[in-house]
């Protein structure tokens, strides 16, 4: 597997919404390169015909009845909000569309 570059770390940081500082990019790039180098061993099994495990226990069909449960009060919901207005979470202007 190829190593991880500073540019890749910068791209990943953008995807993960982390405003990494310049020196951090270098630092992480080095460390991540080591870690990925070490863990890349897992791809030894990539061509093996075994099913992937996403859940440790083989449970299926866990569902709830469509019954209303009490919600939080708006005060509780907003209790941790960094800012609020009109009983809504106040957030900085949103640049992109979703």
């Amino acid at each position, binding site marked *: 597997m190829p190593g991880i570059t500073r540019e890749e770390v910068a791209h990943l940081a953008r995807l993960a919404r982390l405003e990494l500082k310049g020196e951090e990019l270098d630092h992480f790039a080095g460390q991540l390169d080591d870690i990925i180098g070490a863990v890349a061993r897992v791809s030894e099994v990539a061509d093996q015909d075994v099913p992937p495990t996403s859940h440790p226990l083989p449970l299926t*069909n866990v*569902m709830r009845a*469509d019954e209303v449960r009490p919600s939080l009060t708006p005060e509780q919901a907003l209790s941790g909000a960094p800012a609020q207005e009109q009983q*809504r*979470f106040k957030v900085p202007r949103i640049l992109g*569309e979703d």
Partner: protein
Amino acid sequence: MTVTELVSYEDALASYDPVMGLEVHVELGTKTKMFCGCSTELKQDANSQTCPTCLGLPGSLPVVNAIGVESAIKIGLALNCEIAEWCRFARKNYFYPDMPKNFQTSQYDEPIAFNGYLDVQLEDGEIFRVEIERAHMEEDTGKSLHVGGATGRIHGASHSLLDYNRAGIPLIEIVTKPIEGAGTRAPEVAKAYVAELRELIKALGVSEARMEQGQMRCDVNLSLRPHGRAEFGTRSETKNVNSLRSVERAARFEIQRHAAVLNSGGTIVQETRHFHEEDGSTTAGRIKDNAEDYRYFPEPDLVPVAPSREWVEELRRGLPELPRVRRNRLREEWGVSEHDMQSILNAGAIDPIVATIEAGADAASARKWWMGELARNANESGRDLASLPITPEQVARVTVLVKEGSLNDKLARQVIEGVLAGEGGPDDVVEKRGLKVVSDEGALGTAVDEAIAANAGIADKIRSGKVAAAGALVGAVMKATRGQADAARVRELILEKLGVTEG
């Protein structure tokens, strides 16, 4: 952005073959959200229907709403899909403030329903088969209110206010396979498909599918390719096209725009586009480049869904009569043409008419009012028939009043106008506006006598056998009674008093 001069629709299709893909999101009408027990009731106080789970608070976990799954299976079955024996939820990772966890719990490569089709009937009665790729379960986002900019638009806003009442409401996303071969009728097919899908969803009882309330939202993907070419062109994705008419207009506009770009030697950019109700145009949104990487992976907080075949078959047996079948049955019962039935469907009048008949009206009258007076009113006020402030029961009552002779057509129209104006039910309007047909023989007799006296010349003509002249006298009486008389009876009385018999 450069403004491209559109190519005429006919010219566009003379050179190119349109390929469409339609993605429809339907908000289910469950009592609670997809992954928590919060109520889904609309128009409540901001953030009053939230809990740790739908707010994405640290530590909270989702639990699947069984009716959400059941609804998805029903939709899948009605769309002739295969139902997965085993499937999982997946996380679609991207940041957006209206999405509390910054991932959407959705389905990725294992949708609950896949490989189906929906037959839609076009205006001319022809059936067009739209292939369904998949129908999967996911959740809605919260709502943002953009403050400080122009009219709530995101651009220029100083900040935004978030209400998470809608966050977590169950959505079913239904995706078609590429729709090929519709040719010039592509926009019509798009509209007919969405209309048919809406009817289907409503018939299944899984959602009211009110497009104007955002319960059903459509994305129109469209590309053009030169006639004879097999590969698809680059597509545009027009988002949130939220009425049947808009679906048709958006497809049409994009055909013309793509053709213009291609004709001028340009290339289509793969991007999202916004549709504008006002003029039916679309404008560029976000470019879909490779920077977008949703990093889907199986949702570890939810276990797989493995609908038993018994359950699926039980749901299949419980499916209602499908809309197209029902429509054909009703068409025969009502004795109307294919074309009329299509108009009824397009007007959204089937259910109101059925309900009006069930409330005691005869088919012809029910149809007459909904497709006449009420359709006109809906059109003028830009509303759906179903959202007019009159109930099928009230319309039925009006038809009964007409039938028993208490109202004539003209008065009935006034009654309906009164009901729509919020003056109460039909009987209230009749009462308040004093709209009863004058059937008091004494009062009518006096009015007739007065009319004869005031129009001696005409009376003489009638006496001399010119029965046709009676119309003028009838008019005079109707005028005197401000229309509240039964015209047929007035005519009878005039002829009687003048000693003339008809024919």
